[in-house]
């Protein structure tokens, strides 16, 4: 009587669904998380440098050095907050973090610039933050260079090459193009894998799994019934993120919405199957939590191309990123949303994700059988 069986299955799924919805706090967090994260990424996590505190050690103190200092100050990148007067003050200023960079003008700065055609500035940066240090010194270098051209002989600059720049896909260089796809991957991955792995491990830990297994439902039906509500939750989350990205951060939606939703769906199933695998190997919720939380969070942020470009990583890490599910998801998202391409450009990502699903599920079924015997 297949009809009765399906009824039982839906009854079970409904029960699981109610179980989740009864827990208001968890629900609040599941839906509050994408919003909080998007806001943080949108407004806070940015590698742009603005208003960096710098210290000036002006051994010359002439009008040219002062003019350059005020030009640096008006650039928006730097605020000259500390003015120091001896070599011994450099170290404490950097060590305490009062300044990220110290500019040292040589004595007779203006005179050397005009009479000898060359003057020099020493830039000392706090490279304990290497990304910031190299960005700051690059910006300072660019400002100083253009200052030299403005105040030096005029015709030289006009002879150089005129570079017409076109930034494809993202003319304003907005960081949102990186972080919306990244946040989607992070949230879908963690929420889905974490919730699934823990909810199954919970049944095991409390001993209720045994009871479920002797019920007339097949083990596969039990698993599906348990994960089905999470598919719904994760998919709703994906929609919320997309909507916020589109309305609040004006992320483009250039490609097919249907394809985008399909890719999201596949990724959610992928995260679910990973969660199932984690739960089959963990005895307790704690172990499941450690695998899914500690094991997935940092790698998802760092190895998926979310914040840091994969091409810049050491080759071994580039290889490793190939087995990171979010990498393929993020790549597909960007291709569809930002580049506006169709299935011809994302079939590879889709196939890889499907392959991973098959792999994880096969492995969990194997593990599951071993446990039962």
């Amino acid at each position: 009587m297949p009809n009765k069986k399906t009824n039982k299955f839906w009854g079970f799924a409904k029960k699981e669904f109610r179980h989740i919805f009864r827990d208001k706090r968890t629900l609040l967090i599941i839906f509050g998380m994408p919003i909080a994260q998007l806001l943080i990424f949108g407004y806070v996590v940015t590698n742009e440098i603005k208003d960096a505190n710098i210290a000036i050690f002006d051994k010359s103190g002439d009008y040219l050095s002062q003019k350059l200092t005020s030009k640096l100050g008006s650039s928006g990148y730097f605020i000259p907050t500390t003015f120091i007067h001896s070599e011994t003050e450099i170290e404490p200023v950097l060590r305490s973090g009062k300044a990220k960079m110290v500019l040292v003008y040589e004595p007779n700065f203006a005179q050397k610039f005009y009479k000898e055609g060359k003057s020099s500035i020493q830039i000392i940066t706090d490279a304990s933050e290497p990304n910031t240090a190299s960005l700051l010194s690059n910006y300072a270098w660019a400002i100083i260079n253009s200052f030299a051209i403005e105040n030096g002989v005029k015709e030289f600059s006009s002879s150089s090459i005129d570079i017409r720049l076109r930034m494809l896909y993202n003319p304003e260089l907005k960081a949102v193009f990186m972080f919306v796809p990244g946040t989607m991957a992070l949230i879908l991955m963690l929420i889905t894998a974490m919730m699934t792995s823990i909810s199954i491990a919970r049944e095991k830990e409390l001993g209720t799994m045994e009871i479920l297994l002797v019920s007339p439902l097949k083990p596969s039906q039990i698993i599906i019934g348990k994960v089905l509500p999470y598919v719904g939750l994760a998919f709703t989350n994906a929609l919320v993120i997309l909507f916020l990205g589109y309305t609040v951060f004006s992320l483009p939606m250039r490609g097919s919405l249907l394809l985008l939703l399909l890719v999201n769906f596949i990724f959610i199933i992928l995260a679910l199957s990973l969660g199932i695998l984690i739960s089959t190997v963990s005895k307790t919720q704690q172990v499941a939590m450690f695998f899914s939380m500690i094991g997935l969070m940092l790698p998802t942020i760092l190895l998926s191309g979310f914040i840091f470009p994969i091409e810049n990583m050491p080759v071994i890490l580039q290889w490793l990123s190939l087995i990171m599910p979010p990498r393929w998801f993020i790549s597909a998202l960007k291709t569809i949303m930002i580049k506006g391409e169709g299935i011809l450009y994302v079939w590879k990502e889709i196939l890889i994700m499907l392959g991973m699903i098959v792999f994880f599920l096969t492995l969990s079924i194997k593990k599951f059988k071993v446990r039962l015997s």
Partner: protein
Amino acid sequence: MRIILYIIQKEFLQIFRNKTMLPVIFMVPIVQLLILANAATFEMKNINLSVVDFDNSLRSREIIRRFDASPFYSIVPTERSVEKAVELVHSNKTDAVLVIPKGFEKDLDNAYRPKVQLLLNAINGTSAALANAYTSSILISYSQNIMLEKTGSNLIKPSSISTQTSYWYNPELKYSHFMVPGILVILVTIIGMFLTALNLVREKEIGTIEQINVTPIKRYQFIIGKLIPFWIIAMFELAFGLLVGKILFNIPINGSLLLLFSFAGIFLVLALGGGLLISSSSSSQQQVMFVAFFFMIIFILMSGIFTPTESMPNWAKIFNHINPLYYFMKVNRMVLLKGARLSDISESFISTSILAVIVLTFAIRRYRKTT
């Protein structure tokens, strides 16, 4: 005191009896440290460049050779068509397209300021800005050479300002020196906080907490007894992580370890106290996980682990005053890399201590209410 010691002893027995958990606590973080410490870099090591050369002259070929010779560029061959080259950007085969128009050489030699077009894949804004800076500097230095060659050095050269940059505390700009202390902060926090939080709520879930509640143990004794074992594990984890970082990444330890561990000690009281607070107001491990995860991810992202906190908007800077990870992130890097002293980190020290007292008080009070 004796009661607290008994609880601690009991907790340790339970922790060491769990054979699956221990390797996880120590192996997973160290493996992550090893793998991830090198991932976080914006430094461009390889820009794939396609040149569409309509001029096909001596000069344009010389420019292509310059890019080819640079360690930062790989030339991706393309046909003489802008559409074909943009197609390569679409399929991620190339990052940048340089279009050299016809008449480039003639314009350059006659000082007509020749035009070139540079198309960049700007989905990652930072990478695009860097690629633009590198490419422009190669083109400009090339044209300057041509100008010098033509005008001869007897003519007046324009004045210039030379800059010498020195990178203190990390002269080779090693990203691992920056990331290892940062990742350590996160791992130690997550492990300490989650273990504590899950431990308490697990007792609730399986009902053993009722048994403890009927014993004459005082609330604060119970909380302290729960806190200390995980505090020791987290401190040990920090020491272990530092050792691994020293041996494998040769991270500098320029400051006083005593100072670092004193700060870490206070920080962990705060983090674990937070864990207890969360768990005493939750009824299942699942709830604890989600609440903890929610706060952790916000604290982590705002702590400055990847990006400078100075550039954040004001409201974020204000928020960071109550972000424990912000302080620990700062102190860990300052002490290890810059050899910061107590006077340099006194503000973080005081703030963290105040937060620790507040959170611990709340944790003890909250616990009393639920029973």
